[in-house]
């Protein structure tokens, strides 16, 4: 059974890494600014999902798995131990929440910038936006 787990997880990780690579290519080498924005959102989404997969500690202790929410309002020590066994790691989720919010701000700024650039240069093709050189 463990082999199937590892295999499927590897597939997940691998496709996310491929996503990262493709979107990295998109941000760096695609000439259209809008395409760059789209690639950038995909890139940060993939980074976030990497963090979440790492926080999903399924392979560390196979068995039950639950969101990191403690249901019992007055937990005993055993409750907490049991909780720590089944819960996913909450820290990456907190990190991802922060990253999503920051990414939103950056994307909005980039959209505004692209709009302004289109107003001045009449294009969103980066090969033609090259007044500053040398």
């Amino acid at each position, binding site marked *: *059974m463990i082999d*199937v*787990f590892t295999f*499927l*997880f590897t*597939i*997940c990780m691998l*496709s*996310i890494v*491929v*996503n990262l690579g*493709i*979107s990295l*290519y*998109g941000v760096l080498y*695609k*000439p*259209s600014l*809008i*395409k760059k*924005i*789209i*690639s950038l*959102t*995909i890139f940060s*989404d*993939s980074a*976030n*999902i990497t963090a*979440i*997969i790492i*926080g*999903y500690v*399924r392979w560390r202790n196979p068995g039950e*798995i*639950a*969101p*990191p929410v403690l249901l019992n309002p007055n937990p005993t020590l055993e409750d907490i131990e049991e909780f720590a066994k089944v819960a*996913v790691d909450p820290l990456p*989720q907190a990190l*991802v*929440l922060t990253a*999503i*919010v920051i990414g*939103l701000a950056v*994307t*909005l700024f980039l*959209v505004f910038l*692209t*709009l302004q650039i*289109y107003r001045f240069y009449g*294009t*969103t*093709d980066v090969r033609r936006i090259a007044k500053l050189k040398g």
Partner: protein
Amino acid sequence: MVEASVIVLGIMALFALSSTIATYLAITERSLVKAVLYSAVQSTLYALIYYLLMAPDIVLVYVPVSVGLYPAIILMLIKKTEKEEEG
């Protein structure tokens, strides 16, 4: 006998693979509107993966931002600028 968790994991792997296809299409597609749609598909798949990975709180934030807000803003941007990517 197949465990339920293996099925969940299998579904997740399937989603991840299809998200790769969606990403590839989004990057290579010439028409920007279609590219946005592909990236929305990819975001939806990611949201489902988040759900399977026991992160419902992320889903709650991620879906409005990445599936709703980003495509809307970028579509607005496309409407004001260019619809096609140049060669």
